[in-house]
């Protein structure tokens, strides 16, 4: 997967987690929590969905990497570069 495809995956996951929100204006380098109503359970949902869909394991110490869209994609790129987008 390319970084662009990984971003599409994350957006798709966010659509499920925050179905009431408009995700079209997400700014890549601003914390997601400042743009969306997300709490700790929502971030665990992101982690779980990545695990379920792509078997990607994110250690708890790395959760901070999911702060912004940009940091998320950067973090996931090496983990998902060899995977096909579902």
């Amino acid at each position: 997967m390319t970084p662009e495809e990984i971003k599409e995956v994350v957006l798709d996951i966010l659509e499920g987690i925050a179905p009431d929100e408009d995700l079209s204006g997400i700014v890549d380098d601003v914390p997601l929590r400042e743009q969306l109503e997300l709490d700790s359970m929502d971030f665990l949902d992101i982690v779980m969905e990545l695990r379920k869909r792509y078997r990607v394991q994110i250690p708890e110490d790395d959760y901070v990497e999911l702060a912004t869209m940009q940091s998320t994609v950067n973090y996931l790129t090496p983990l998902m570069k060899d995977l096909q987008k579902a």
Partner: protein
Amino acid sequence: MMIAGLPKRERVVITGIGLASPNGNNLGEFRESLLAGRSGVTPYEIRYVGKTVAGVCTFDELKYQKRKDLRRGTRAGSVGIYCANEAIADAGLDWPNVDRSMVGIYIGVTEHGNVETENEIFELKGYDYDTKFWSHHHNPRTVANNPAGEISLNLGITGPHYSIGAACAAGNAGIIQGTQMLRLGECDVALAGGVSESIHTFGIFASFKSQGALAEHDDPTRASRPFDTARNGIVVAEGGCIYVLERYEDARRRGAKIYGEIAGYAMNSDASDFVLPNPQRQAECMQLALRRAELNADEVDVVSTHATGTASGDIQECDALRRVFGGSHRVRFNNSKSFIGHTMGAAGALELAGNLPAFDDRACHATINVDSLDPECAMEGLVVNEARQQQVDVILNNSFGMLGINSVVIVKRV
């Protein structure tokens, strides 16, 4: 200790009703369906069990919740949130100025957590039962206080909240708990009643079926048929009913509409069997509630029976009713499960609500689907198939459950 003769300030009244029934999304619709003989039972299918029938609610979940709330919470939570919001609106409370630390939430449930656990195990099967795919939402969804807690979160209520596990006596148990907490001064407003999401767990259908107690009929609307010779079991239903209860003086001071007064109540236990009812204990429960209400049996106008439509349960309850009301020519007996099935934790609260408009419209709704009355269920006052006009001042509501738990609530006109 008897509660009769309590000072006036301890009187507790109903000032608001919110409900979700398979045949009505508010009291007006529900009552209209009950008087018109309109069933809410429909064809239904659930995993592993397959095609069956159930009472399914159609209230608008998004009226008081966002889609995200629905995703995170439970169906029981949604039912409760809908009913609580509707009840508060109906009560005409000045909600923004109500001290929410003095609002208590007391929600009866027959069971909770089966739906969410079954769903999670079903999901986990796709991951070869590897528990690292088990949801972090499982615990908050399945804690026993979930339905009450979701109401607290939705409405910003900071007073006490908890669920009351009382099998199918739970709806009445919620009302009783709310009444007691008002009398103790633990709250000023009680949101009390019961909810059920039970149609979403295959286990309840499968268990009733294994017990030989799951209703079947070609026409779903005729599947729930208490007192009829052809009855063959329970129709599982979902639903909810939550009351706003207040102390009488508070309600009068703010000029609230009053549906009726909780005149008496009782709960007791059979201590005799896991599933079979005990008419002697049921009769004792009704008699205790009557004593507390300072009423004689012949002063009761309507008895809302528990009657689930099982072969033995209906006969046993009729036995209990004869022991209490045998000498009364005034009392009428009816039943709501024949219309909507068994709403489990909601049943006691919902079935009482369906009768409360009788104080104004002076009608006793019927028990429907009686084509051939079982001689063992024949009672002089049984209102069969069509509503009957009459003066109604006192309603006695029965609700019984497994493990031998009995509950009775008596409401009288104010």
